[in-house]
């Protein structure tokens, strides 16, 4: 992203080019976020007049079991990010070694990304039930099904494993393979001549060479966990059982669209916004660092 400086400016033309984008963003991004901050200090049903209640929503939120549960659940998802990074990197490295059929593997593993969270959520909601095909098979072997969706511990971990590790695998493979492709092949040849093992090459050559890609991957996963998983939760578990897969996004949804406490929901939104702002800043820094 090199940009030349020091030449004469382009006058008003750039602003004309930017006008559609800026108008859309002002209306659909900046205004909603600003309004969220305003309504977080009110009691409001989403229509009609609102009532100022100061910090009351925030006070309620801090003592709200559901809020704490959703923070905790989001935290648990974050714990899957290292696993996702390691697994994806390793498989990419395997494929990089020219394993036969790697293109087919890469394509098939990409299918979940292709179909998206809504379809995958519905598919897994059928597939992981206690009386599903999978559990019928498991019951045949072990005598009892695995309660993927109705045990609180399993439910959140199932979501974590599926969403953070499994569903992105295909995406990550393409991504890391492209990054690894940029590594000078002679380094690998030299390592091989030195008799370095796969693991040693992986740790000493591959990972350090694609450091930026790995960092982007981590940031990407943070974004998925905080800002993109609503559709999957909504179609797979609806935040349940109880509150065991409730997340900030899902809480915002329930408060605003089931209980119609839009003011209170906005307070949750402000918290989510704060998290996202931090992730966003991290991402921007990363981009700037790479471009230098």
């Amino acid at each position: 992203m090199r940009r030349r400086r020091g030449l004469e400016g382009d006058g008003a033309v750039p602003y004309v080019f930017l006008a559609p984008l800026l108008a859309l963003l002002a209306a659909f991004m900046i205004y909603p976020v600003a309004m969220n901050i305003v309504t977080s200090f009110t009691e409001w049903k989403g229509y009609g007049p609102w009532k100022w209640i100061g910090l009351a929503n925030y006070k309620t939120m801090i003592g709200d079991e559901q809020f704490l549960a959703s923070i905790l659940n989001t935290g648990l998802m974050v714990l899957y990010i290292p696993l996702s990074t390691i697994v994806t990197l390793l498989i990419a490295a395997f494929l990089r070694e020219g394993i036969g059929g790697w293109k087919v593997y890469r394509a098939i593993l990409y299918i979940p990304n292709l179909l998206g969270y809504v379809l995958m959520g519905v598919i897994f909601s059928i597939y992981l039930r206690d009386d599903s095909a999978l559990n019928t098979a498991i019951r045949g072997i072990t005598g009892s099904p695995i309660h993927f969706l109705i045990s609180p511990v399993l439910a959140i971990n199932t979501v974590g494993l599926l969403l953070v590790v499994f569903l992105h695998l295909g995406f990550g493979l393409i991504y890391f393979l492209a990054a690894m492709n940029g590594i000078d092949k002679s380094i690998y040849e030299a390592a091989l001549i030195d008799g370095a093992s796969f693991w040693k090459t992986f740790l000493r050559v591959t990972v350090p060479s694609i450091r930026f890609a790995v960092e982007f991957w981590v940031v990407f996963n943070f974004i998925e966990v905080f800002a993109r998983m609503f559709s999957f939760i909504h179609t797979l578990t609806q935040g349940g059982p109880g509150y065991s897969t409730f997340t900030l996004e899902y809480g915002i949804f329930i408060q605003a669209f089931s209980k119609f406490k839009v003011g209170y929901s906005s307070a949750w939104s402000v918290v989510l916004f704060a998290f996202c702002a931090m992730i966003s800043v991290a991402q921007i820094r990363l981009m700037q660092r790479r471009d230098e």
Partner: protein
Amino acid sequence: MMKRAILNLALVTVFATASLAAQTLTVWDFKYSEVNATGAQAPMKANDAAFEKANPGVKVVHVAQPTVDTQYYPIIQSAAAVNDGPDVAMFHPGARVEGFADIIVDLDPYIKDVKGQFTAASIEMCSVGGKVKVLPITMQGFGIYYNKALFKKAGLDPEKAPKSSADFLAACEKLKAAGIVPITTGQTYTIDFFLRCQAANAYGPNVAGLFNGTQKFDNPVFKESAAFMKTLVDKGYIEKDGFSRPYFMDSIDKFGTPSGGAIFIGLLSDVGNWKAFSDALGVNNVGYFPAVNFPDAKYKDQQVMQGAGIGYGVMKWSKNQKLAAAYVKFVSTGEGAKTYSSATGSLSPNTQAAGGATTYPVLKVIQNYLKSGQKDYIPLGYNGYEDEANRLCDRAFVTGEISIDKFIDEYQKLITK
């Protein structure tokens, strides 16, 4: 002269039709997407056509909206935000109507002639602050259905409903021993509906007291009912697999198959009701009782009943409020009400529309219990109350995260939340 008169008449007719044709009545409906055999769409279509015929020039645009609360009510909310939307909308009387009362027209001026046809309980549920907001097309309730053929197979007397807690447990044990699933279960609602059934026995005519502080959930019978549910789960009488299966319609379907399970906590109207089960299992194979009786309970055999299950209201932004009210009246009274309830097997809250359906023995049993209909507490709550209550049920009975005492405690706290 004659020509002129004819011309005039023709002109008048043309203009009259033109002005009438401009009248479009939009109806939002979360039941309209049911296209299966006993689904709601067929009778609704018939009613719309009859209404159009009775009101020349009027066109009814019936819009199928999402069935799920968290998808349907946000759409109402977003219509309210701009004060523009359908003329008529379907609502669940109780918390939902109360939550949206400020955007629903008072129907009283329009329904003086028919108000008396509706049961007092239904009018009460459909009113907010003494004003009627919606007219109901169903009466709803929950109860315990059992499959007589499977009872026979397990060596139980199919004509003797296991109403007492001891009989109920004994029946479950015998069914289990015979290799029959004692209680077919579905996600969330099996437990929810059971507790609502039991509240009728626990509080009798005082259910509403839960919301003014005169009654509490730590009432011994209610607490016993919760503990009883836990026993059913622990002893494996409740089909645990069912907790991850959608109640609507997978679990309902399962009970509707001959070997799907012996006992089911089902509904009185809409779907999963006496008609659907009788049609699926045979009219003589379906037994019913309203709740489990505990020996020390003051009230027994009480039937939980929502005077009104679903109904239509006229929206404040409608420019055709009078016509909209006429539509609401049309589908909730007379032939309109009969058409809907006979096609779907719903119980009508309109006393003049009570259908025959005498070929269903189980309906007679139900009607007998309905005489003692007690209120359902969930609709007395607030927007989103049921979601909270159900999540708590999951935590106590499905995941086992919290004890029964803690459950009762938290369940009580939800009332005032």
